[in-house]
């Protein structure tokens, strides 16, 4: 049969993908509240992220994208469905090998600790020596371009620098999966672009798997290898689009490519709940 070889090839490819899926969500639903007053926030979400992939989840506010992220992080328990991080099922506890960058950096960094101590704080579990933790923290700060700020306090830094500290804290743990919840929602446009490029460089240099939740359509397309569009109440996945843009990406050159402009428009329509363009 002519189709057999192709089918066999596809299956082999699929098992291989299965093996390296860092994140696998199957039929996730979450409702808030109990009894009569429940509110279904997300319904039947399934998605996967493979090693080294940046998956962006985009949607209007209230579509449940942050709920999905909070379920993955173990901060909320899904009402239905399973989440696997690196093969292990996430239940009540926060899974191993996971780090989160919150939107609200000023509240997520501890103001009574220096920048270095903030970054070093989660390392206690993995590194016994205090000096070693300090070195790891300094390395991570170096990576995000904050080489000489370790002795300062978070509130002495600008918003963009504080978010860099939060990113340094996350990567110092060497997570298999990095979750970012609207990470650049509270910084100015220029800083935002710099931080997007920082995320891309993290993936390039460290092969980190990143799930980025955002409401910014440009950001989702620019940083993502795949864009997952969520819409509605309860939130559902309405599209899972591969981003075929050349790497490395560039804030000016990539964004003027026809492929970027088209995809951006398509995601925009999907986010607004319109039908995708007829070309697809």
């Amino acid at each position, binding site marked *: 049969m002519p189709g057999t070889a192709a089918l066999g090839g596809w299956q082999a490819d699929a098992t291989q993908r299965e093996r390296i899926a860092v994140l696998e969500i199957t039929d996730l639903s979450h409702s808030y509240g109990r009894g009569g007053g429940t509110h279904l926030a997300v319904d039947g979400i399934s998605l996967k992220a493979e090693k080294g992939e940046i998956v962006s989840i985009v949607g209007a506010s209230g579509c449940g994208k942050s709920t999905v992220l909070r379920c993955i*992080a*173990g*901060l909320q328990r899904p009402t239905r469905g399973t989440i696997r991080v690196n093969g292990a099922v996430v239940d009540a506890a*926060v899974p191993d090998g*996971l*780090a*989160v960058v*919150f939107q*609200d950096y*000023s*509240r*997520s960094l*501890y*103001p*009574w*600790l220096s920048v270095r101590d903030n970054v070093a*704080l*989660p390392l*206690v*579990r993995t590194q016994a020596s205090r000096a070693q933790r300090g070195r790891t923290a300094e390395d991570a700060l170096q990576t995000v371009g904050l080489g000489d700020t370790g002795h300062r*306090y978070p*509130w*002495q830094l600008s918003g963009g620098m504080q978010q860099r500290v939060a990113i340094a*804290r996350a990567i110092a*743990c060497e997570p298999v999966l990095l979750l970012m919840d609207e990470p650049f929602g509270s910084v100015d446009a220029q800083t935002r672009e710099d931080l997007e490029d920082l995320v891309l460089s993290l993936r390039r240099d460290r092969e980190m798997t990143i799930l980025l939740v955002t409401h910014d359509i440009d950001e989702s397309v620019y940083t993502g290898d795949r864009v997952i569009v969520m819409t509605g109440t309860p939130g559902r996945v309405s599209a899972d689009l591969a981003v075929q843009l050349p790497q490395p990406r560039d804030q000016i050159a990539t964004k003027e490519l026809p492929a970027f402009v088209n995809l951006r428009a398509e995601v925009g329509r999907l986010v607004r709940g319109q039908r995708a363009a007829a070309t697809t």
Partner: protein
Amino acid sequence: MSRAAAATTRWLWRWVVLAAGALAWQGWAEWRHSAFFPPPSAIVAEMYHLWFSGSARHLALTSSAIGNILPSLARVGIALGISIVVGLTAGIAIGRSPVISGYLEPLLHFGRSLPPVALVTVFIVLFKLGDQMEIAFITFGILWPILVNTIDGARTVDPVQVETARVFRLTARQRLIKLIVPAALPKFFAGLRISVSLALVLMVVAELTGSTDGIGYLMNNASSSYQLTALWAGIVLLGILGYVLNAAVLGVEHFVLAWHRGARRLAS
């Protein structure tokens, strides 16, 4: 005018106002020759004579100062120490555990609404007259502001900070030492400031009721034997002690909560 110069001017004015007040009092007292309001010069002389004219070996303290001021300070110090330890540990436990607070909170609000002064007799019955009763009495009165404020501080730790601790899987010890205690400290210090001023009041009340030494005892003696200058010396001494204690707490707070001031100044 530079900021430093402005601060110096403010500081100078503070002392000018104080000196002017003392001078006005002095003039008025010398003019009226009132037995009840001796001039400040007489009060200061009395304080020197009573307490600070001792031998150099005792840092110029007289035996009356050693026998009365030091015991009073010791009582306040011990009561403050107990209140800080109990207030911080119990406050954090109650603030962080809904179970514990569910059991203890009604009792707590009952306890803190009792005026300590009304309970002197109960404490005398419980502890007999003496140091134990006085320390227990002061502690009972000053524990509440520290405890209630610490509970509030521990309970209202920012949820994002708590989720950060969960996500980064901080150990229980780290959560306590690196998150909950520092987050509760600003409220704790607010309570401590109230307790410190309250401590001196309760110290005097405790010593007025059947103590055999202490500043309150001296004042009680002085007033019952119509030594009004000595009574005034006690009043001024209490004022100075209150000022110094408050300044000491503010100094510690200034140092410990440097991050809090910095973060708040930038946020505003």
